[in-house]
């Protein structure tokens, strides 16, 4: 079921499938549970994504063949792993107006009212598949097709931290200010990433995010 691919002399890829689906991502999360219980000298880092885990090790401390053996030894235990239910995180959002300059466009291009777009966007529990791109940025699954909208043809030079957006069939929150081409429909004050806080990151893969419209603004 799982494939192990070479990735230079200091990493390996453990692959559970080619697709993006809660099922395949679930296998990755189960593997992470098994990995976290392992003692492996020289293991530097595990980086899970949609359908694989990048295993990084110190080549001076860890023997690559032994790492491969250890990974293969986990596979029989996969079916026994009970995935902990992810946290459910509510993210209050100021939709539209100056916080969501592209809300009207998203509505118009999809033949909806802005109220309908907000209603649809905030009615789903989005699965957090993985984090990447910038610290704290969550790749969310489950965006309703009715409000899917292509990226802006002219990306903005500056997108404010906390901006909530849509790009194609993806939705997410910009945790830090950066350039970007997403359609911005709202803004949140929640800081998904704060290097001086414990926990530094509020969200883990497997958590669920629900956007909650803030009505008094």
């Amino acid at each position, binding site marked *: 079921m799982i494939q192990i691919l070479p990735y230079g002399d200091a990493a390996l890829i453990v*692959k559970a499938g080619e697709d993006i689906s809660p099922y395949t991502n679930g296998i990755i999360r189960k593997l992470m549970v098994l990995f976290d219980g392992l003692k492996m000298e020289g293991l530097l880092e595990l980086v899970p994504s949609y359908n694989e885990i990048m295993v990084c090790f110190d080549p001076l401390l860890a023997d690559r063949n032994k790492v491969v053996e250890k990974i293969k030894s986990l596979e029989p235990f996969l079916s026994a792993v009970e995935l902990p239910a992810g946290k459910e995180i509510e993210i209050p959002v100021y939709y539209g107006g100056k916080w969501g300059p592209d809300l009207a466009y998203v509505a118009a291009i999809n033949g909806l009212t802005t109220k309908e777009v907000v209603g649809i966007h905030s009615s789903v529990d989005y699965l957090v598949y993985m984090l990447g791109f910038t610290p704290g*940025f969550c790749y969310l699954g489950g965006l309703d097709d009715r409000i899917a909208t292509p990226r802006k043809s002219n990306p903005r030079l500056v997108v404010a931290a906390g901006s909530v957006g849509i790009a194609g069939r993806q939705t997410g929150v910009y945790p830090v200010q950066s350039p970007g081409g997403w359609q911005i429909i709202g803004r949140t004050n929640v800081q998904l990433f704060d290097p001086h806080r414990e926990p530094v990151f509020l969200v883990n893969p497997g958590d669920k995010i629900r956007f909650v419209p803030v009505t008094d603004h």
Partner: protein
Amino acid sequence: MPDNSITIGSPGLYTTVQDGGRFGYQRYGMPVSGAMDVYSMQLANWLVGNQYDAACLEATLTGPDIHFADTCLVAVCGAGMAPVVNGKDVAAYQTIMVKAGDLLSFNTLDHGCRMYVAFSGGVDAELIMGSRSTCQPCRLGGWKGRSLLKGDVIPLGNMNNNGSGMKKVPEVLVPDYNRPCTLRILPGPEVGRLSFEGLRTLMTTAFVVDTNSDRMGYRLAGLPVGLHASGHEIVSSGIVFGTIQVPANGQPIMMMADRQTTGGYARIAVVSAIDHTLLAQLRPGDEVTFSEIKANEAHRLLGHRNRLINLLQ
């Protein structure tokens, strides 16, 4: 021991505080950052009695002017920037003793790209998420999340008092950065995306490092490296240092210390750990070729170099 510090005069083109890197947070999207040339940083730290990954300064192409508040051991390793103390030439790859009021500066770079300046006690920048490395794309870490500016006063840690003494790195451990560079590479997870012509182009032709190259990634210019149709993209996945990716225009990009943690281009190959020091010393205009190395041989070379370093202790 009174607190020591350095004051920066002219800061050099791009000087940042770096240590061994910020590990444990790639799964949250936090780049590793850290020294581009970990090997040179390791040697410099050894020379001043620090842990191999203690925070130091990474200088790029031109070096900073550094004024010392107090006595300190200093060492310089990496690119060919001859260090100068109070106007007199001193040697790189050797422990240097400086005292209060001394000025360390650097002659023009004659080869390589990055130089590591280690101070006994290390650079005492704030520890953020376990590291003192600067992640400039995130504006975080190191010295205020940015490169150094004139007038910066930077504290140093307490000098290790077990008197590590004056040392010199033996010739055999100093890499040859001068000749045309060949990087030995291993296959990446998507190596199968290469077309036959693409593989041949990658392994038998020369590329030039483009000016549009930095701590996030190096862009190479040369004959286009062909992939199978629609083989360029992958679902967002993790990326290690030294990964070679090939976007649709066929011009390879090499992922470096400040790379984003995940990306959507095929991971064709990766530079072997033993050659990371050569990679990090490439600069715009340098020519580079690639050759294959087997995993066993790469491991053997790395182990051999490490044993030599351990003999120094």
